[in-house]
């Protein structure tokens, strides 16, 4: 198992470094940061002064190395517009996003996996078709529309839940349902196809011919193998969710990382965007690594 981890780590670091370089270059090329900082009425002298003050007069590779060196020392810099430390900005905003992401994933898995198993256990029946309709609905319905409808019904009309914010657990109910609905269909489909594949495999037929009870056959053999892609999907989905869902955070006024990234991109607040890109990519890479390890633990064949 240790060997699996050691083999994956250099690749993971390389991916994170590549993402940071690409992110840095793309962000710097996407706008005229000096003029944006200096303001509409700045003359050439002020532009040069701003460029010097922020180190923007240096070549791009030097700027990147300076930024990387600061990053390695734990310094993400400060927001170019509010002067706040980027680390504290991200720390403030990460909480709501983590809660939203984890809760949505748990809800999606807890509902999606059993539905997938149920569909696989009853292929091509009414049950299977009803579950397929639910999955298609979840995938097809736009987040912002579903979120707004939920808001109008449960917050405005029935007044059971708050409209906006992230102060209490009640504030997360509607956004979690909205987000979970959109990611759940993937779990239903992956679980269903995984279980169906496993149930048709030779080793299952062999086990069945040995007289192993159906329940044990399903739980101990089929589901164990079918769950591998679910683990990978969970890791990838969580990484995606931790990047922040701009639409859901926007509709439900959750001040999370998604909204911070979106507003920072619009204002070209480079240090904030760059920090979010790097953190999210590292989290993503870490989660992928974790899913590899978990899969290797479940299936010894993957440790080779």
């Amino acid at each position, binding site marked *: 198992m240790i060997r699996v981890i050691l083999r994956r780590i250099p690749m993971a670091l390389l991916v994170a470094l590549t993402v940071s370089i690409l992110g840095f270059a793309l962000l710097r*090329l*996407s*706008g*005229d*940061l000096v*003029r*944006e*900082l*200096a*303001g*509409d*009425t*700045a*003359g*050439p002298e*002020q532009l040069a*002064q*701003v460029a010097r*003050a*922020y180190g923007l007069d240096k070549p791009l590779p030097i700027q990147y190395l300076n930024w990387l060196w600061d990053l390695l020392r734990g310094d993400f810099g*400060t927001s170019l*517009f*509010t*002067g*706040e*430390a980027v680390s504290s900005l991200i720390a*403030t905003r990460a909480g709501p996003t983590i809660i939203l992401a984890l809760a949505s994933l748990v809800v999606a898995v807890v509902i999606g996996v059993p539905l997938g198993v149920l569909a696989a256990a009853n292929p091509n029946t009414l049950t299977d078709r009803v579950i397929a309709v639910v999955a298609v609905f979840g995938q097809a319905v*736009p987040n*912002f*529309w579903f979120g*707004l*409808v939920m*808001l*109008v*019904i449960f*917050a*405005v*009309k029935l*007044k059971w839940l*708050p*409209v*906006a*914010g*992230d102060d209490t657990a009640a504030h997360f109910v509607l956004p979690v349902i909205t987000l979970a609905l959109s990611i759940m269909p993937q779990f239903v489909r992956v679980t269903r196809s995984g279980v169906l594949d496993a149930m048709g495999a030779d080793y299952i037929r062999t086990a069945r011919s040995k007289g192993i009870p159906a329940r044990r056959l399903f739980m101990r053999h089929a589901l164990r193998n079918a769950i591998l892609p679910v683990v990978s999907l969970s890791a990838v989905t969580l990484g995606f969710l931790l990047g922040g869902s701009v639409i859901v*955070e*926007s*509709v*439900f*006024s959750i*001040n999370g990382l998604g*909204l911070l990234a979106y*507003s920072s*991109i*619009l*204002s*070209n607040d480079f240090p904030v965007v760059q920090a979010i890109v790097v953190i999210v990519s590292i989290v993503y890479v870490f989660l992928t690594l974790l899913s590899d390890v978990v899969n290797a633990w479940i299936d010894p064949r993957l440790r080779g």
Partner: protein
Amino acid sequence: MKMKIAASALALAVGMTPAFAGKDDDTLRMAFEYPISTVDAYADYKPEIEMLSQMVFDRLVTFDEASGEYKPMLASAWEQVDETTWRFTLRDDVMWHDGEPFTADDIVYTLNWIIAPETQVRQKGEMSWLAEAVKVDDTTVDLKTNGLTANILSLLSSGGHILPEHIHGPLEDKAEFRNNLVGTGMYEVTGLTSDGQLTLTANDGYAMASDYWAAPSIGTVEIRAVPDIGAQTAALMSGDLDFVRNARFEEAQAIASAPDYEVTLSQSIAYIYMMLDTDGQAGQEALADPRVRQALIMAVDRDAVQTSRTGGQEPSRTVDHLCWDFQIDCAYNTPIPAYDPEGAKALLAEAGYGDGFSVTIHTFNSVKDFAEVVGGYLSQVGVDVEIIGQTFAAFRKSQADEEFQILLAAWNGGKGPDSMLAFQPFFNSDVRDLLKDPAVTEVNKAITGVNVGEERASMVAQVLDASVEQGYMIPISGIPIVFLHKADLEMNVNRMLPYSVYLNDFSWAE
């Protein structure tokens, strides 16, 4: 499509009674589209924060739109001592929110801090006229300028809020000022949470309330972040907010059919302009011909464009040139050509482009709908239009790379009462100037050194006339701001700032 679906969803809730009326507890509940990190516009220059800065802090002078005159604020009187010195006499009865007295030291500290080389604030460019602020005594300050600056009062009335030297001065990291936002203004900061919720409380001892700068009518203001306008509207209808700024007009009209809600249309000082590449360097040589540029201007029905966001409803005021008529010394002799599509076609044919040509319109995403309407008019005279919507950051990049064939963009109108603030940046022969006419630039720059009056107005007219005659730049429309609010909330609108309304413009209906 997205707007229609959202409107349909929200229309379900029309007819509901607000659960909690702000009038009952004298608390105005409002939302910004982002969390608030400060009320100091030197640290965050967004239009909403600039408005809040004027509520929590004060400036030396203010401009009374009703009389068209500058009026006292922190300064009770002022005079121009010589060409480069303005003397301000300060009030001696002003206190900071923490009880400390306001003095000349605060003025000197703030203004000199802004212009100091090590200070990085966006307003630095707006204060580039200032050489030094010098304390004469506790209630007198001299502002030394870099040459004659005619619009100094305009600049001081629209910006330059004064900070407390005893708090801001000692801070090594000026961003920490957000933790102790003490001002002299009509509202005190009584709460600012880490997730960006702001509470303001009326300053009962506010010394500068007057007939031209009203004391606050509402005791408490709570501002929170609700990024999505649809969610803001839902919050309004559930009683969590008292108004929505920038509501979608059709949706607001539908909701206001219920008696609990009203729609108020406002205009800020901002406007949308169309600028043409006069030398054809951005890839369309046809634009180098003045007849073509004139034709494009004549092809656009500006009256129709400015009602495109409000279902044909007329705006409360119209922008007739590159400055508003209420701005000081806004003068011109050459009006913008009237809408004349046949005349435009004839001009294009005369210039050899009777079969049309292709052109790109760069625009901000936020005003892309205006660009689409303008593009529609241009296509009616045979011009094939591609619209390129951009974020502001990408816009800056395109601007630096001189990619604009036609630019249709929003502009803050100079944010102040002097007309030169509104148009001067577009005629300075720098990256923003696509005309780069040395004669116009010379007059444009010389305006700064001429005092308010007939001579200066005639110079303004030279610049504005040249802009139209050369087919370079025209205003297209003001920017309507739709307020959807509770019926028991009243407001004065059309203020001379991008946000278009101050907090002391709100009151509860009797």
